[in-house]
């Protein structure tokens, strides 16, 4: 089977985020960009499936500007076979991404789509769910363990208060969680090989999708600076403060 892995180019998780002066978004000029860490986990899983003989081909797809090619190359260096760049310079919202991925999935016919559970830039956590609805495929979200059978997959999901194990029919959409695996880093020969792997470039229009945003960002602001703490003498004072000042207990 083919495995499709969407990968998003985001501000590197090590970067200290700065809000733009005009409060329209965060600063991305001259900021280090990397693959969304949850997508790395998805790529790793797909490559492991290939190594285990469960997948024939791993396709990495990214929607974003020309530079999103670099993110695809990272996936190729980890072991994906080829890439698809759906080039779009402006903002793309989860619904538009899901529509584009639906079109790609219909063209490629993967047995499973492995998404990161969310992207660390907007933390939307919507794409996989929307994609599954649009395709009419089953979904397994927040997957921390995944076993792929011939026509169904067994997924362990991290849910509040424990682990839930479900079976889904293939093809399916999975969104992966942190504990699924530890992604590898690329070796030098694999980085070199990745340079020769093909990347197809398409536009949203080629796929019949209009990616125009439907939401308007009103304002992006820094979180308020943390106030200095106070020392309390005993439990009674703590409880009093929590009740009367912080008003977090009744």
């Amino acid at each position, binding site marked *: 089977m083919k495995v499709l892995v969407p990968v998003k180019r985001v501000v590197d998780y090590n970067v200290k985020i700065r809000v733009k002066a005009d409060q329209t978004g965060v600063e991305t000029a001259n900021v*280090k960009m*990397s693959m969304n860490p949850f997508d790395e986990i998805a790529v790793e899983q797909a490559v492991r499936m290939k190594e285990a003989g469960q997948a024939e081909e791993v396709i990495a797809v990214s929607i974003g500007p020309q530079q999103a090619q*670099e993110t695809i*190359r*990272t996936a190729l*260096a980890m072991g994906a076979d080829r890439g698809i760049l759906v080039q779009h310079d402006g903002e793309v919202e989860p619904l538009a991404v899901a529509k584009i991925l639906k079109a790609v999935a219909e063209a490629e016919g993967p047995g499973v789509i492995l998404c990161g559970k969310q992207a660390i830039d907007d933390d939307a956590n919507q794409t996989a769910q929307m994609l599954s609805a649009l395709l009419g495929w089953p979904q397994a979200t927040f997957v921390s363990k995944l076993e792929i059978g011939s026509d169904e997959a067994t997924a362990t999901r991290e849910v509040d208060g424990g682990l839930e194990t479900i079976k889904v029919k293939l093809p399916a959409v999975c969104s992966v969680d942190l504990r699924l695996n530890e992604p590898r*880093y*690329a*070796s*030098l*020969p694999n*980085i*070199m090989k990745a340079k020769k792997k093909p990347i197809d470039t398409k536009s949203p229009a080629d796929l019949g999708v209009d990616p125009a945003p439907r939401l308007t960002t009103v304002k992006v602001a820094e979180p308020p600076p943390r106030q200095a703490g106070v020392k309390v003498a005993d439990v009674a004072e703590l409880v009093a403060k929590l009740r009367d000042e912080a008003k977090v207990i009744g």
Partner: protein
Amino acid sequence: MQTSAPSDHDELRDALRALCQEFPSDYHREHASKDIYPEDFINALTRDGWLAAMIPEEYGGSGLGLTEASIVMEEINRSGGNAGHCHGQMYNMGTLLRHGSEEQKRAYLPGIASGDLRLQSMAVTEPTTGTDTTKLKTTAMRKGDRYIVNGQKVWISRIQHSDLMILLARTTPLPEVKRKSEGMSIFIVDLKDALGNGMEISPIKNMVGHETNEVFFDNLEIPAENLIGEEGKGFRYILDGLNAERTLIAAECIGDGYWFLERATQYANERIVFDRPIGQNQGVQFPLAKAYVNVEAANLMRFEACRRFDAGEACGAQANMAKLLAADASWEAANACLQTHGGFGFAEEYDIERKFKETRLYQVAPISTNLILSYVAEHILGLPRSF
């Protein structure tokens, strides 16, 4: 920390940094304090192909240039490690590649690329002649299909962690050659065969945790086919490799420089004395700013040396200048970093005293600062030769 490095190699750096992060400071500290070779670290670098960056693809390497190789060295040092444990391979394989026969290349390079063979050692320096290399006294005399080696070397690094060594020895006595640079040859020595069979080593305990040794040759026999290139031209072959070596060393210094500056700025921001961060005092800021300026300037010269080398242009001047600038800058950064840390800089657990000692070496080995200045004075400025 923002640097002047071009962004073309971010992908390589990201992958290297991810690997290096698996070996945090305490790993390097532990190995250095116990004088243990960082075997796992070197194995990981080898497994992922980093030490074979410059070996051509036809022999199993990645066929990259000096630019990329120097980034490997830089990142090792910038991560808190010490490229001295593995840089020999980067220079030595170039000698084999440029001057070895096709059979020698086929015999050794694929093994070096895969990590089955290590070519980490090169034996040039001798106790009685030092920098005056052409006077070296180790001889290799042809006898039938072998060469018989006698003499002594000193400061020969990584022998206990290498399979192969390149040896420079005299094959024609000094009085019999027209020029003193003639009559020396280089050989590949199979260390496992040689040890105990005409070659003995005695480790030297030293300030920088190098695995380095005295080496004694007493009728060591080397098969004649292990001669690299033509007999008598070995010194020239060694000189040919020096530009690459100097540039790689410059990159190591630059990695150290950034490491010191990152540690120092972090500490200067965090350490509160007189109710404010020490980094708020210009007396603390300026030495760090100065060191940063110098590391960055050295870095530009290093990339210029790399660019010329990779384009096949002459790069002797740039390689030498990069080495001098970088070694001075890393030493300046080391000193500023130690000063910034006050007493804590002397505690092993801060790693600064270790890196401080390690980076000091670059003023002396593989080539001392004076000898670079002498090169610049005589070869670039055209001043009269002093030796």
